[in-house]
């Protein structure tokens, strides 16, 4: 099985604070991986390292076999990234924003690809709208569109449904599943929305104070805690165990 993400002892320190502590993780191609953890657990720092925005203090990581330090340009060609609360450029239209990011990624036939991607989202009519006029949910979907322009093999989503209403959350979730099933895109997402994780994800990892305390398929995780009825209960139980261990 080909690994989309492989990390070994990946560590990031900010002065005395260890944000990510010896993270060793393998995410196979084609998974939808939910990365869980409390605020400040190290999820965003991990995504930042895997998307080459941040250099690790120590350890290694590879995306489809490309080292994030040595081959960062190859890594960036493989990945699509949607940060939390994506805002893009408010004074530009959707098409102009997508044109800019397509050009940065070296996408050929960009105008045609922009139409394709907006059609994938089911909203080709958004093309001429100014981003500043869009709702948060619409902007989040345009953020996803910009991440898809160069046909990435893996999507990194940081709290994709953060602040969205139930309808917006559902639309994003459906899109993620569809992209995974239709195009085989691996998805790595940070999230707090445990109900969505149960519906979407094939495997999960739980971070606690920079350390990965659990990583497995969702099926195995649920089987490991037969007395707990939901992922939320399991998550809280893991957090409780970690607190008592500390």
């Amino acid at each position, binding site marked *: 099985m080909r690994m989309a993400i492989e990390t070994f002892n990946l560590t990031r320190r900010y002065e005395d604070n260890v944000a990510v502590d010896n993270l060793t993780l393998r995410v196979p191609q084609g998974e939808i991986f939910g990365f869980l953890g409390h605020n400040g657990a190290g999820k965003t720092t991990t995504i930042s390292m895997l998307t080459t925005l941040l250099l690790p203090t120590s350890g290694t990581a590879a995306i489809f076999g490309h080292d994030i330090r040595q081959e960062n340009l190859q890594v960036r060609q493989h990945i699509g*990234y949607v940060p*939390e609360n994506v*805002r893009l*450029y408010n004074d530009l239209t959707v098409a102009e924003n997508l044109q800019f990011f397509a050009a*940065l990624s*070296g996408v050929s036939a960009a105008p045609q690809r922009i139409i394709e991607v907006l059609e994938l989202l089911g909203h080709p009519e958004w093309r001429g709208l100014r981003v500043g006029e869009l709702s948060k949910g619409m902007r989040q979907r345009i953020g996803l569109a910009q991440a898809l322009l160069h046909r990435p093999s893996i999507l990194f989503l940081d709290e994709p449904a953060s602040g969205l209403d139930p309808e917006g959350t559902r639309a994003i979730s459906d899109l993620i599943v569809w992209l995974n099933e239709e195009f085989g895109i691996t998805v790595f997402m940070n999230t707090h929305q445990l109900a969505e994780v149960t519906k979407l994800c094939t495997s999960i990892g739980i971070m606690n104070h920079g350390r990965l305390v659990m990583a497995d398929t969702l099926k195995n995780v649920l089987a490991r805690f037969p007395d707990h009825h939901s992922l939320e209960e399991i998550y809280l139980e893991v957090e409780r165990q970690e607190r008592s261990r500390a």
Partner: protein
Amino acid sequence: MNAIALIARKEFQAAFRNRLFITITVLFLAMSILSVYIGSVTKRTELRVYNQTVASLTAQGVTALPPQPEIHTLTILSNLTEYVSIVGAILAVVLGYNALIEEKESGGLKLILSRPVYRDQLLTGKLLGNAAVIAVLLGLVFVFNLALLVLIGGIWPTLGEVGRLLSFVGLAFAYMLIFLSLAMLLSIRMQNSAAVFLVSLVAWMLLSFVIPQMAETMMANSTVINSISGATNQIPQDTAASQALNFLSPTWHLRSMGEQLLEAAPGSVILKTGTLIGHWLLTLFALLIPSIVFMAAGYITFLRDETLTLE
């Protein structure tokens, strides 16, 4: 198109969509019209008064007539020095402050840097894009002022005068680059957009007003006594300390050289060309030093600390 050119183009387009920038630019050009108009009216009045005086003296049979006042064409544009040193600096601050802080706050930098773009390419693109905006703006000011000189002033400038105006525009570009690079450096270092804008303006005031005023206080005064009336006059003279302080003020450099370039008589152009070129090169050098320092500091900070884009 490579990443630098793409980012530069986006910056260039973004500047002309920025309402604050457009408002200040329009104000700048409107001030030019007013300035040329006032300058032209003043010159015409001087000439009219002279002609009236000559006519009156001739009618009285006086043969020793006063010399005709010299019409220094570029003097009409001399207020440009003031406008560039004030409005130009503010425009450059607006451009520099917008270049990074907004994207830092919105997370836009993360999106760009998750693409095949290096951090130095991003910064270079932003710098070039905004420098191009300044160049276009000053080009516009140059053409606009020449046109005003002809249309309002009714004066066709000589080639030498066009050259002087162009030399001034070159210095204005170097001057505005200082405040662009300073605001960009601050927007790299600081987290709050309002703070970046305020600190940039305070730095501009310090360099433009405080330092020259301090230099003025360090000048030596020589006393001259009027032999007829017995009145005494204080004439300030440069000292080593005042010169050293003024050297630190880009505004002082721009104004001093601007006065030399824009207030000279047309007849003296050829005579003074050699000296002027020497002074111009020295001024250009003095104006480029701060930009180079600010840019270098910006690159070092931006390349070294990758967490700056993640906050």
